[in-house]
C-alpha cells in the first residue's frame, strides 16, 4: 500500500462543490500545473510550510522552535525562513502568536477514521441534500485503495459523494470509484490540446477519454470550466467545448468559474515563483455572452461561479 495521502484542508459548510451543505476534503498533490492555479499549495505531494510575511511581526518565537535552524533573524531585525534548510516539519507553527505560519499537508487518518470525521455533519447533509466532496489537488492521483475505501464507507452510510477532478487519472482509478460516486465535478480547461499542454503541462487526451467513459457509464456529471483570459475565454474555444460536451456527455450542468487572483498571496507564502502571469478574469458582459453561447448549443443549465 502506498503512503497515506496528505490532506491540506477539510472544509465544513462547503456550499459550492456540489449540492447542499457539504464537507470538502482537499487532498494534496496534483499531476497538472495549471498556470492560473489559485491553490498552489495543492500541487506538491509533500508537506509545505507557508509563511505570511505580512502577518509576521518578527517576534522570533519560532527561532528556538526550529530543529533545523532554518529560521534566523537578519541584519535588518526581520525573521526569515531559509527554504533550503526547511523540511516542513511544522514545529514552528504552534509557536507563532500571529498565525503567520501554516503547514500545508498533514497525513490523512485511516480511511475509516476519516469517514467517521466526515460523518460529523451528516444531519446537515441529510437536511440539505448535501454530502461529501473529495477534491484537491487531484483526488484521483492519491492512493486508490484508500480512496475506494473512503468512498465505499461513505456510500454505504448513505452519504452523497462527489468527486471533484481534473480527469487526469488512470482509467482504473475512475472505474474503481464509479460505483460509489454520486456526482462527478469534472474540470474541462481546453479542448485544444496544444493550449492544454502549454497551460497545464499535460495533454487532455486522457481527460477527454475518461469523461467519455464516465458518460457512457451513466455517471452523473457536472462540467466545471475555469474561464481564464486569454487562455480559453474565446467564443470559438467555448463553442468547441460545448459541442464536445453535448456530443459526448449530453446536457449536464455546466459551471463557469471566472479566473480570480486568490492564489497570488499563496505563492508568496509558499516561497514559490508564480511563473506565468498576465491572466485576468473575463468581464461580466463577456461571461454573460458565454452563458448565452452555451445555451445556444443546448447547454441551458449553466451556473456562474463567482
Amino acid at each position, binding site marked *: 500500500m502506498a503512503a497515506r495521502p496528505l490532506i491540506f484542508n477539510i472544509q465544513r459548510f462547503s456550499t459550492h462543490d456540489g449540492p447542499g451543505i457539504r464537507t470538502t476534503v482537499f487532498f494534496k498533490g496534483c499531476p497538472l500545473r495549471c498556470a492560473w492555479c489559485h491553490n498552489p499549495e495543492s500541487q506538491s505531494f509533500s508537506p509545505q510550510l507557508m509563511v505570511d510575511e505580512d502577518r509576521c511581526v518578527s517576534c522570533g*518565537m519560532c527561532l528556538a522552535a526550529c530543529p533545523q535552524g532554518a529560521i534566523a533573524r537578519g541584519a535588518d531585525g526581520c525573521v526569515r525562513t531559509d527554504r533550503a534548510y526547511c523540511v516542513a516539519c511544522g514545529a514552528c507553527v504552534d509557536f507563532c502568536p500571529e498565525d503567520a505560519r501554516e503547514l500545508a499537508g498533514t497525513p490523512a487518518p485511516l480511511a475509516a477514521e476519516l469517514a467517521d470525521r466526515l460523518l460529523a455533519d451528516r444531519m446537515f447533509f441529510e437536511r*440539505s441534500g448535501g454530502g461529501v466532496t473529495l477534491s484537491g489537488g487531484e483526488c484521483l492521483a492519491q492512493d486508490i485503495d484508500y480512496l475506494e475505501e473512503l468512498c465505499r464507507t461513505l456510500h454505504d452510510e448513505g452519504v452523497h459523494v462527489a468527486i471533484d477532478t481534473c480527469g487526469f487519472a488512470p482509467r482504473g482509478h475512475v472505474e474503481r470509484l464509479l460505483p460509489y460516486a454520486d456526482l462527478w465535478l469534472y474540470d474541462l480547461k481546453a479542448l485544444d490540446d496544444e493550449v492544454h499542454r502549454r497551460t497545464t503541462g499535460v495533454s487532455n487526451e486522457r481527460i477527454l477519454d475518461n469523461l467519455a467513459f464516465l458518460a457512457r457509464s451513466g455517471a452523473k456529471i457536472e462540467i466545471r470550466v475555469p474561464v481564464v483570459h486569454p487562455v480559453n475565454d474565446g467564443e470559438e474555444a467555448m463553442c468547441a467545448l460545448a459541442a464536445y460536451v453535448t456530443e459526448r456527455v449530453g446536457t449536464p450542468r455546466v459551471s463557469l468559474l471566472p479566473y480570480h*487572483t486568490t492564489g497570488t498571496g499563496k505563492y508568496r507564502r509558499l516561497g514559490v515563483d508564480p511563473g506565468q502571469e498576465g491572466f485576468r478574469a473575463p468581464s461580466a458582459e463577456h461571461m454573460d455572452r458565454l452563458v448565452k453561447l452555451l445555451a445556444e448549443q443546448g447547454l441551458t443549465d449553466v451556473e456562474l461561479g463567482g
Partner: protein
Amino acid sequence: METSTIASFDDIAEQQLEAIDAALAAVRSHDAPTRVTSHDTWADDHGMNERVKRLRHQSETTQPYLDMERALIETATYLRHEGSVSTPELRGMVLRDYFADKTISIEPGELIVGEKGRGPQAAPTFPELCCHTLADMRNMNDREQVNFRVTDDDLAAQASIVIPYWRARASREKIMRAQTSAWHDAFEAGIFTEFYEQRAGGHTCLGSERGVRAGFDEIRADIQAAIDALDYMADEHAVAKCDELHGMLIALDAVTILAERYAELAERMAAEESDATRAAELAQIAENCRTVAHDRPRTFWQWIQRYWFIHLAITSETNPWDAYTPGRLDQHLIGYYRADVAAGELTRERALELLECLWVKFNNQPAPPKVGVTLKESGTYSDFANINTGGITPEGTDGVNEVSYLILDCMDEMMFIQPNSNVQISRKTPRRFLCRACEVARAGWGQPAFYNTEEIVDELLAAGKSLADARRGGSSGCVETGCWGYEAYPLTGYFNLPKILEITLNDGVDPRTGKLIGLRTGDPRSFATYDELFDAYVRQMKHFIDIKVRGSNINTQICARENPVPFMSLMTEDCIARGEDYNAGGARYNTTYLQGVGIGSITDALASIKYNVYDHARFTMGELLGALASNFAGECDARIRVLASRRTPKYGNDDDYADDIMRAVFACFRDSVTGRPNMRRGEWRIDMLPTTCHIYFGEVTGASPSGRLAGEPVSDGISPEAHADVNGPTAVIKSCAKMDHASTGGTLLNQKFTPSSIAGDRGLDNLADLVRSYFDMGGHHVQFNIVDRETLIDAQRHPEAYRDLIVRVAGFSEKWCNLGRELQDEIINRTEQGF
C-alpha cells in the same frame, strides 16, 4: 389638640399636592425635543407609504426625553391614599390617576393611538422601583450613547418632590438593605447581577383566552364574580384576595378611562379636521377606542388598538423587565383579518399599514433609563418586546397563516430594533415561510431570530406544563421560554461562570480587590488532577448560587409586598381565580430564571488547564497562574498564551474534548439551580443568555487560561468564545447542540456571515437548512449577523478578533483571516458594490 394635629397634617399634604401641581405645569411646559439629523426628511425613511414613513421618521428622529408626569402623579396618589387603602388598590390607583391625568395626543396620520409618556420617545420614570439621583439624571442627559433630555424643571421636580418622597421608599433601597455582606461582595465583584435592582419582575406575554379576546367589561364582571365568591368562612387569605381583586378592578378602570379619553380626543380632532379622509380616520379611531374601552374588538384594527392599550397599561403600571408583547400576533389576528377581508372592510395593504403603525408605536417607547451596573448588563435601550410569528396552534397544528407573512413583510420594511421580532419554526412550518424569514434575516440586521417550536414545547413540558399550555408558549425578551398568559417567569440576573474559575484559581480571593469572597478551596498548585480542580470550581459555583438564590428570593418577596401589579395580574391566568397577584405566585405557572453567561469562555479555560497542565504537561499550574496574574505580560507568558490559544481544544469546533467539559459545567450549573423553591410557589430554572452582560462580566474578569486577556468580553450566550471556533458554522452548531437545551428555559446562539456567503437562492436554501438542522438536533434559538463593509474593514485591522468570520470569495467560501491583504481589499470593494 388632637383635631389641630390632624388639620396640620392635611395642610402639609395640601401644600405638597399644590407643589406637585406646580411642578407638573413646569415640566409640561417643555415641548418634546427633536433630534437634528443630517437627512431631515421623512421621504428617505422606511415604510410602505407616506403615512408610515412620516411616523417612522418622527419616531427615529425624536430625541428620547425624560417624562416626569408619571412620577409626580404617582407621588400625589401616594400622598392622598397611602395607608388608607391596601397596597394592590394603591397600585391600581397609581395607574388610574396616571391614565386620567397624563397628557395625551394623537400624532398626525396615526391610526393606532396612545403613548406611555407624553408623546413619542418620552420615558416616564418609576421612582417606586429606582429613585434616580440628580447625578443620574444629569448623566442621562449628557452621556454620549443613547441619552435622554432632562430639563431644569425636570431636575427641580426630582429634587423637590420625587427624591424626598421616594429616596428611602424605593424598592432598590429596600432590596440593597436586605442583602448580606456576602451578597454585596459577590455583587460588587461582578459574580452576578440583580434584575430587581432597578426594574420589576414582569416578563410575560399576552396569551390567555381572556387576555386575547375578552372585552374589558367582561373581565370586570369576572373579577366581580371572583370577589363575590370569596369564602370568608374558610379562607384565611380572603381579605388579601379581596384587596387584590379590588386593585384589579381599579387598574381595569384605568385602561377604560384612557381609551375613553382617546375616543373623546379623536372625536374633537375629527370635528376640527378639514381633510375629509383624515376626519373619517379620526372618527374611526374614536369608534375603535370607544368600543375597546368596554367591549370585545370587532375588527383587525380594533384588536391592534386594544392590544396597544393593554401594552401601555402593563408598562405604565410598573417597569417590568422585557416590556410586554402580543405573543402570537399572527394567530390572534387571523380571524379578524379573514372576516374583515371577506366583508370587504380590509385589504392586505391596509392590514400591513396597521401593523407598521403598531411597529412605530413599539419603537416610540425607549426603555426606561438605567443606571450603574444595570446599564452595563443591559446596555441597550431596546425594551425587549419580542413579537412572535409562526410556530403551532394550541391544538398542535401549523400556526403559519396570511398574517404571518404580513408580519415578515412588516419587519422587512420597518427595520426597527424595537419591536424585536422572531419566527418560531416547527416541523410543520412550511418551507416557504422559513425561506421568507431567512430572506428577511439575510438583509443583515439580525431579525428575525429563529426559535425551535418543538424544543420550546419540550422545555415547557419538562418544567411541568400541560401539553396544551406548553403549545401556547414561546420565547420572549431575548430567548426565555414561558407559557404566555399563564406564567410569570421573571429573570433575576446574570451569572458569571468564568469569573468563578478566577476565584477558584485564587483560593476564594478576587484578585481584582484582594478580597476573600469565595470558599477556601485550596491552592490550585496542590491539585494533583484535573478532577480536583473541577471539584473546587463546582464548590465555588454552588457557594455563589446559594448567595444569589437567597438574595433573589428575598427580592421576590419584597417585590410582591411593595409592587403588586393588578393589571398584569388580570391579564394572566389564574390570578383572578386565585385572587392573587402576578408577583406573588398568582399565575398558573411560576418560574424564576437565572441566566448563565460565558459557557464558551469557561469551557475553553477549563479545557486549556486540562489539556496543557494535566494531560500534556505543556506548562505547569504555577506557570499558568503567573501568566494570568501578569495578564500574559511576563517573559515566558507569550509562549503559554500561544499554546493556550492555539491548538488547544476549544468549544465550538465539534471537538468532544472541549464539548464534554462544556456539558459538565452546564450540568453542574443547571443542577445547582433547577428545582429550588422560588417563593412564588414555583421553581428556579436556568437560561443561557447574556444580553450585553458578557461585556461587563469580561471587564471584571482577569486573564483566562484560554488566552483571553483581562477585561476582554467573555463569550455570549452559548456561542463560542470570540475567535475560538475555526471549523465553520456546522461545527459550532454541533457543539452547541451537545448542550441539553430542553432542560433550560432558553439558550442564545449568534452566528455571523457575510452577505455574499449566503447569497442567491442557493445561499438562502443553505441558511434555511442550517436552521432546520440545528433545530433537528434540539437547538433552541439561532440568530444571524450578516456583516457589512465596516466590519470587514475592522476585521482587516484586527484579524485576531475575526477568526470565525466566513466570507464568500469566488466559487468558494473562505475564512477572512486566511485571505491575503490584496484579496481582502478586493472583497471589501466587491461587498460595497454588492449592497
